[in-house]
């Protein structure tokens, strides 16, 4: 691990210092690769059963010693974080091709990616709250600077600033919680926090809520997600992918960590997590169906998937509280696997969105169309990513949702009215799945199928860059492997789930007691049947039955001059569903309607905006009005006297504290 850390630091420095862009990238990528190999060398044995590793580092101030521990929880998160960031960096070489050829110092970008990787190592291994906060901050600053890579654009700068403020709110809540815990235990060690967190008290409950709010802000649970759409739209595609798939999973890691420290959570904690996650999943997918910007759409889909994982965490928490090991295993196992699966397909989708942007210079659904003819690699990759995102068999999203469904539908006898709530959550999950399928059909169908709605998006000289395709293919392989052979996914999450099972009422249980191999093999069997029936029908259809030898225009009911603007647009596709849930969504329209006797061209645009963000901004505007009125009432003061007054105040405070 030490080698990994040093390699990353070397990579960062090299990327900043070396002379040409190409050498910076080559050095940085090789350093990242070395770090990934080292980390995997340490973490994979732990995921397959060997004992956790411990270590410590001596530091000088403010803590003398930082304990490091690589337990199954941390190693699970590390195992996918570093390689996926490496793949993202490979993608970046293709995406930033134009910047690399120019005189811009691209090494900064790769150094920031390396910084973010370094922060993973810190966040997922340290057992000391102070060092944890430092790692958290590294990730936040690194992600912010990556988001504002195209900082000359004011909108991107604003989106980055919005993200920075929100992630520091999350830090604020985290610091508040750490302060309470430090006050109670007079130490920064997680092991000392364990005693405070596992005994029930008002302070403990407040700390729990603060921590969950902080992690909700970081992982974009609703209603703390308002930074997400702007940040994902503004950032370069691979940065959005990594933020969505990897960086923000640190919030979920925090939730797991807190629950493992709390050891026997109370009932209200589990229900609170389930309710927040249900709202998050539903609102996330509802926003997804109405967006016209692909990256905003995928960002809201992250909120939805994090909600689904949160439902799993809530179920596991209830299992710990009510002493049902089956719920613990299925809930946490499903949540872990969903986090991994989400990283796989969400990164694939974002890479696809980046590929589309580089090809057409637009990410607006309403302008694209018909890209299947020229983007031959991206089309099937994006298609399978969309299938996985809608949790359809035989792809990986289905497997993790299936495990969460197993947890919710478990025939657990004494759950009582809780069983009714679980069934309603099942119905909500099915609704979320249906809406996600609508969104997948809409986004894939409008971008790749049909004809281009805006001819200015058609650039005849665009090509798909191979370095952008290779990471997508690797993610696709992961999606197919876990989708068709779910046993592999279950192997991956066995150790972290066993760690959580140790806290339950049957500490020696393993995940395979509740998710037996026979069940996973049945899912494989069904997938195999589906694929073989499909293959059989295709063979029969194309060998025996007549094939097409003539193409003609699409039937337009006799209309002789159809054009591409007559195709269904994004807002029309989601219109029926939006009308049903209309009160939860907010649209703004910009119109210049043709007026007068000889009218000019008019235009009419609708955009779906984030309700929470709107409310936050209107609140801030209101506060600013009040502050403005208050400031007007104060007398005019010269700057000199203001400075003297400030210095006097500081001296007074110092004197008072030193007494």
């Amino acid at each position: 691990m030490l080698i990994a850390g040093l390699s990353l630091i070397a990579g960062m420095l090299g990327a900043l210092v070396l002379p040409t862009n190409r050498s910076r990238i080559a050095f940085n990528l090789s350093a990242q690769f070395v770090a990934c190999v080292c980390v995997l060398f340490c973490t994979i044995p732990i995921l397959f059963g060997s004992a956790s590793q411990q270590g410590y580092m001596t530091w000088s101030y403010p803590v003398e010693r930082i304990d490091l521990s690589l337990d199954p929880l941390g190693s699970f998160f590390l195992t996918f974080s570093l390689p996926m960031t490496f793949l993202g960096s490979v993608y970046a070489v293709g995406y930033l091709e134009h910047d690399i050829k120019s005189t811009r110092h691209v090494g900064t970008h790769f150094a920031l990616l390396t910084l973010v990787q370094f922060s993973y190592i810190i966040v997922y291994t340290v057992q000391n709250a102070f060092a944890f906060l430092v790692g958290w901050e590294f990730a936040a600053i690194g992600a912010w600077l990556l988001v504002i890579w195209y900082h000359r654009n004011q909108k991107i700068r604003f989106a980055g600033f919005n993200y920075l403020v929100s992630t520091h709110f999350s830090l604020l809540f985290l610091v508040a919680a750490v302060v309470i815990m430090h006050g109670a235990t007079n130490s920064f060690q997680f092991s000392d926090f364990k005693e405070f967190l596992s005994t029930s008290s008002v302070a403990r409950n407040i700390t729990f809520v603060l921590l969950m709010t902080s992690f909700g802000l970081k992982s974009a649970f609703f209603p703390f997600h308002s930074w997400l759409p702007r940040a994902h739209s503004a950032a370069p595609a691979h940065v959005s992918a990594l933020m969505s798939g990897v960086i923000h999973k640190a919030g979920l890691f925090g939730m797991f960590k807190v629950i493992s420290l709390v050891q026997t959570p109370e009932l209200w904690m589990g229900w609170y997590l389930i309710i927040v996650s249900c709202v998050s999943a539903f609102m996330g997918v509802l926003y997804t169906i109405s967006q016209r910007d692909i990256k905003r759409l995928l960002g809201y889909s992250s909120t939805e998937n994090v909600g689904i994982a949160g439902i799993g965490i809530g179920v596991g928490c209830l299992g710990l509280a009510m002493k049902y090991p089956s719920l613990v295993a299925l809930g946490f196992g499903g949540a872990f696997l969903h986090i991994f699966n989400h990283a796989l397909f969400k990164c694939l989708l974002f890479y696809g969105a980046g590929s589309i942007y580089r090809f057409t210079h637009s990410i607006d659904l309403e302008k694209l169309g018909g890209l299947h003819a020229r983007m031959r690699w991206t089309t099937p990759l994006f298609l399978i990513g969309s299938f996985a995102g809608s949790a359809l068999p035989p792809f990986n999203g289905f497997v993790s949702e299936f495990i969460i469904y197993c947890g919710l539908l478990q025939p657990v006898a004494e759950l009582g009215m809780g069983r009714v709530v679980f069934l309603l959550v099942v119905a909500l999950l099915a609704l979320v799945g249906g809406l996600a399928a609508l969104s997948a059909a809409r986004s894939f169908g409008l971008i790749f199928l049909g004809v281009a709605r805006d001819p200015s998006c058609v650039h005849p000289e665009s090509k798909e860059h191979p370095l952008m395709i290779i990471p997508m293919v690797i993610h696709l392989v992961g999606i197919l492997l876990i989708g068709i052979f779910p046993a592999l996914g279950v192997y991956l999450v066995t150790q972290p789930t066993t760690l959580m099972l140790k806290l339950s009422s049957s500490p020696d249980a393993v995940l395979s007691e509740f998710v037996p191999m026979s069940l996973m093999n049945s899912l494989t069997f069904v997938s195999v049947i589906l694929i073989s029936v499909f293959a059989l029908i295709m063979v029969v259809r194309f060998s025996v039955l007549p094939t097409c030898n003539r193409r003609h225009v699409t039937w337009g009911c006799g209309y002789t001059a159809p054009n591409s603007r007559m195709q269904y647009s994004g807002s029309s596709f989601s219109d029926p569903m939006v009308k049903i849930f209309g009160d939860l969504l907010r649209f703004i329209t910009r119109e210049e309607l043709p007026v007068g006797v000889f009218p000019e061209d008019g235009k009419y645009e609708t955009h779906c905006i984030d309700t929470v963000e709107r409310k936050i901004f209107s609140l801030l505007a209101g506060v600013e009005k009040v502050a403005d009125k208050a400031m007007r009432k104060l007398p005019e003061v010269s700057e000199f006297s203001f400075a003297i007054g400030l210095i006097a105040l500081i001296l007074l405070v110092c004197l008072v504290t030193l007494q």
Partner: protein
Amino acid sequence: MLQLFLLIIHIAVIFVGPIFMIGIINRVKSLWSGRRGPRLNQSYFELLRLLRKTPVYSQVTSWIFPMAPTIVLATTITASLLAPIVAGYAPIKFPMDFVAFVYILGLGKLMMMLGALDTGSAFEGMGASREATYSGLAEPVFLLGLGTLAWASNATTFQDLVAPSNVPLLDLGLRITISLAFFAILMIEASRVPADDPTTHLELTMVHEVMILDHSGPELAMVQYASAMKLTMLAGIIASILNPIVSGDNVFLTIVSALLSILLMVVIAISIGMIESLIARLRFVTLPLYVLAAFVAVVLSLVIVTANREYF
């Protein structure tokens, strides 16, 4: 031995049943209109005719267009292997297989929508949009109903949860309510009146038919057959829920139960035909209320189960 017999009957009903279900529905509709109506196996000849035609594709469609009907048919066949249709027997069983059932059908629906959007026409887009909305609303109701049945019979597989249990009167109330809800869902999923009219070809009034407006030849045959198979499958599930015979290993009881299932499926087909003849299709804006009605029926059954569990 008995299992093999049931498997053969199941496969026969899946592949031959759709022809006759559509035939019965059309015959009932014709009789209500005062006509004699086509033969019961008329749709077999229709499908054969379509299979012999050469399809014509649109100039803008991609490789997804010919692949979509294939995937729809493959998913419908796979899902029907998971569903208990005759005598409450399902060939493939594993815990929580009803979740896999719903999601496999979901894959078929998504591919159908993508095949529709591939044509680049406003009509198919409209059909895809409507299909996405109404089936997206119907799926949660269906899964909630299955979950309620699973809770009531304390079962985890599809086959076990439709099996009759040993508290007859409560069971009857529960099963009738769920069957009514599932019957309403069947109307939406199989594109029947009052959710969708399979005989209209006025573009603004179609849902399923407009998605397949550009399909021709073998593609159209596959889509129509898959749609009929879905109807048969859902009718079979309702028949299994209403079937009161517990057959076990008794050969005679199994045969009686199988015949009763098929009889129930014929009754369902006749009632679909009657509803199509007597009731007009609902306006699209009121379809969500229709789904809400089915949801209320399922919630009512959930209340029945809860009351039973908590107070008895």
